């Protein structure tokens, strides 16, 4: 197959790890895209997908740890990972400033993931090819 010209991607993940396969498929896709010379502009977590950004996940040691695998990939490739703030607040994912604002007992966002608005997704749709990784039903 002929190589395609370099593309810019925004990847949107709406399925949670350990509930759907979405974060795994998206990670394998992202690695292959980078390897092929494409650019991943950002990863946007929406709906149940925000759970991927949890710093408190502790799967059994003989299972893959999808949050830390994603975090390492984002760090290595300097890719922003953004969890939608509205989805995150409802589902108990907060950073330090939201912890303070809502007077919560802790924060639990895994670096380098950040929390921001849907504007990040809108920007993605305007400037890059946006692909969705949903729960598989």
């Amino acid at each position: 197959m002929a190589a395609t010209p370099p593309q810019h991607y925004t990847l949107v993940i709406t399925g949670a790890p350990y509930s759907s396969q979405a974060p795994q498929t998206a990670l394998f896709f992202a690695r292959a895209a980078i390897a092929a010379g494409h650019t991943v502009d950002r990863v946007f977590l929406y709906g149940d997908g925000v759970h991927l950004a949890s710093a408190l996940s502790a799967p059994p040691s003989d299972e893959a740890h999808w949050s830390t695998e994603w975090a390492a990939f984002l760090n290595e490739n300097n890719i922003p990972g953004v969890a939608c703030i509205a989805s995150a607040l409802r589902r108990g994912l907060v950073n330090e400033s939201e912890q303070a604002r809502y007077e919560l007992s802790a924060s639990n966002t895994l670096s380098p993931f950040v929390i921001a608005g849907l504007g990040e997704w809108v920007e993605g749709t305007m400037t890059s090819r946006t692909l969705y990784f949903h729960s598989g039903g």
Partner: protein
Amino acid sequence: MSTLIVIDQPPYGSWAGREALDMAFSLAAFDQSVSLLFTGAGVNWLRTYQDTQEIQQKSVERNLAAASVFGVEAIYADEAASRLYRLMPDNTMAGVTVIKDRAALLRQHSHVAFAG
């Protein structure tokens, strides 16, 4: 670029549709072209007289009524699904365009995103 947001899940049983609606409103807020398609069990979003007081959720009927104000270009409903769920002109909210050819509608948009 024109975006079609597709909602095929009924209201209240899950949040996926609400969050898809937020996506549509957000695109509209940034002056991007966006429309909504309700299909499958999703057409039940469009029924009138939703009274959600007892389930303690906000009515999606009220949210949807604001769609055109927010700049959403069109609200489409799949004809077959509307018929299946007995949605008629007298129990469907105003401003909905019933369509027969979903595939053609998908083709007309350069970007399609499903709820959930």
